[in-house]
């Protein structure tokens, strides 16, 4: 349930993270580590770590900033500065798992996760036998929320989850989350297959529509069985999502996910996680369904997400076979 329009994660006890390291970690590092270490337990041998984060490190940066201002640039403690770099999740993970392979952090806001996923796809083309930990992490953080609120991205009024999509007001609710997955060319036991990722920067709905049309044409042979939409209750971006719905065949179900995770830069990673669950056969929960028949098989899922009226991504996910 959102509190003050923020959907926060419920943090577990972190048994896998050494206490000495845990004490220094900001929330995004903790939640990123938590999910990633759980995945690594299942697949302990891997060749690198590829993370996407929009806000990672922001909170620690501002905590360090507070010291700079309040102590007037006097003698300061370095821990928050060291944790404030966006690559803290990826590097702490490499420390914890002693992984000396490829390590990178993509920070392109609403497309950070997509850029990380494309990076992983490139690594797999370059090294077909390898596998990589791919993750998307973002935290709400008090300070960052305030900046985004002042910039007009969150609802001014308290939003109830049940009404989020009917509010017809600007803004959405803040979210946070961490998703981690192991990716490889291995079909056996794979949860899903990411067929294609296309990204675009545009505030022009006609341009976005054309891009989606082109994307659908490219994948003509594939029957979309579900549109997983990043609609988030912000009435300024609704038209992008409605246009996307118009372009897919009549009757194809449309589902939404932002009422579950809130809005955050790497929310598309949450959508991908959901897509994997659906492809595995889990029934689509009624609260996600916007329209259409939920019983249709979810073999080919199109995820469409738009971040802050500018960054768009189309991700095609299908069953691995």
């Amino acid at each position, binding site marked *: 349930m959102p509190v003050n329009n923020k959907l926060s994660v419920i943090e577990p006890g972190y048994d896998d993270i050494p206490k000495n390291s845990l004490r220094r970690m900001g929330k995004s590092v903790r939640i990123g580590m938590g999910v990633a270490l759980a995945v690594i337990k299942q697949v302990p041998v891997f060749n690198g770590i590829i993370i996407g984060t929009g806000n990672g490190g922001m909170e620690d940066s501002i905590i360090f*900033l507070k010291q*700079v201002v309040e102590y007037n640039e006097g003698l300061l403690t370095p821990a928050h500065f*060291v944790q404030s770099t966006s690559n803290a999740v990826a590097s702490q993970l490499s420390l914890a798992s002693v992984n000396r392979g490829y*390590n990178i952090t993509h920070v392109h806001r609403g497309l950070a996760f997509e850029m990380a996923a494309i990076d992983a796809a490139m690594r797999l083309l*370059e090294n077909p036998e390898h596998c990589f930990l791919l993750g998307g992490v973002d935290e709400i953080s008090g300070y960052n929320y*305030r900046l985004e609120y002042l910039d007009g991205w969150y609802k001014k009024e308290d939003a109830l989850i049940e009404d989020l999509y009917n509010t017809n007001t600007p803004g959405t609710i803040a979210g946070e989350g961490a998703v981690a997955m192991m990716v490889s060319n291995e079909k056996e036991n794979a949860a899903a297959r990411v067929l294609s990722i296309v990204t675009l920067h545009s505030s022009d709905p006609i341009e976005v529509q054309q891009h989606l049309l082109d994307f659908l044409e490219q994948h003509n042979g594939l029957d979309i069985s579900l549109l997983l939409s990043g609609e988030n209750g912000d009435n300024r971006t609704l038209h992008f999502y409605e246009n996307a719905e118009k372009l897919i065949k009549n009757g194809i179900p449309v589902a939404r996910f932002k009422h579950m995770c809130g809005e955050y830069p790497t929310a598309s990673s949450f959508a991908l996680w959901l897509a994997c669950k659906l492809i595995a056969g889990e029934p689509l929960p009624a609260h996600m369904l916007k329209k259409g028949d939920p019983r249709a098989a979810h073999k080919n899922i199109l995820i469409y997400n738009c971040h802050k009226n500018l960054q768009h991504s189309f991700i095609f996910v299908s069953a691995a076979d």
Partner: protein
Amino acid sequence: MSRVLITGIGVISAIGWSAAENHIALKNGACGIGLPGYLHSRYAETFPAGEVKITTEELKSKLGLTDASVTRTTALAVHAFNEAISDAALTSNQLTSGSTALIGATTVGGMCLTDELYRDANAVSTDSPFLASYDCSSVFLYVQRHYNIKGLVNTINTACSSSANAIGYGARLIKLGLANKAIVGGAESLSKFTVNGFNALHILSPEICRPFDANRKGLNLGEGAAFLVLEREEDVIGKKVYAEVKGYGNASDAFHSSSLSDDGEGPYAAMQGALASAKLQAADIDFINAHGTATENNDQVEGKAMLRIFSKPPPFASTKSNTGHTLGASGAIEAVYSIFNIANQEIYPALNFTNIDESIGLTPAGVYKKAAIKNVMSNSFGFGGNCTSLIFSKA
């Protein structure tokens, strides 16, 4: 798979406003490091830095950037971007093509506006123009908007190796057929935030830095930006080509968040990876642009890693005693400097090296000279153990 060739370069740093100026400065052994005149920090009187000698407002005005939300980092990026795309003679259609990617990098982003960020993050209401300007991506989202880039756009932050990874990402997009062109690079500006952060770690030097020297006392910060235009081999017929992006290696040191392991596992693996991807042997490298920040830890470890790979290391130097450590921009700025080595067949003197550190046992290049340079390795090792090595070759 297509070769990836460099057809345009742009750079701004403490030693020059353009590629030509930076080149002359390197040849002449010019040092752009001194007490900063424009940075608002009490440490401007204590720690020398490689500052670009202009106020943010003047730079924005020169570039015609009237948008109040544009930060110093973004302005530096635009300056270098302009030079690079003009140098590569990219047409407007090519620049805005869906197959032209923009891959940028920065660690500070808009946090050069340290005081403004503090105010806004604690504000109840504000008409600040900077609310969307603080994060790393704000820099390249501006470039995307300003030039109407319609291909893939990305921002990378892996601390000091950020723009080296940006170059690698762009090159790989082209090699794998996911883009035809890529404009790749990074930008960084001096900020109260980083000065205080590095000071808290006690690794800033109160004098001009001495990479690899026995008496080195730490690093000087620097600022600047650089971009390279990368194109497929088949698209550059008739164009001038500076060099090829031949190799890319990336590895994690996995030792500590702010220092490298004693044996330099990360740097070693990154350099090995670059050689392997370039299909070259260590002996093929004619010059190394070292990371060489002049901290006790980095130079020690980097030297060790170099000796593990190169039984007889080629001439090498760190250009950070010319420009300071430009953090997220260093990979790209030093890539441009590596291109100078190749395009002009010469090496530049390492500045401020006087006494060999016996525990490292290496002496950087002492004088300017002409040399047969086919392959240059450029190294960048960042906080968090993010180690990247690039190899540029004569095309």
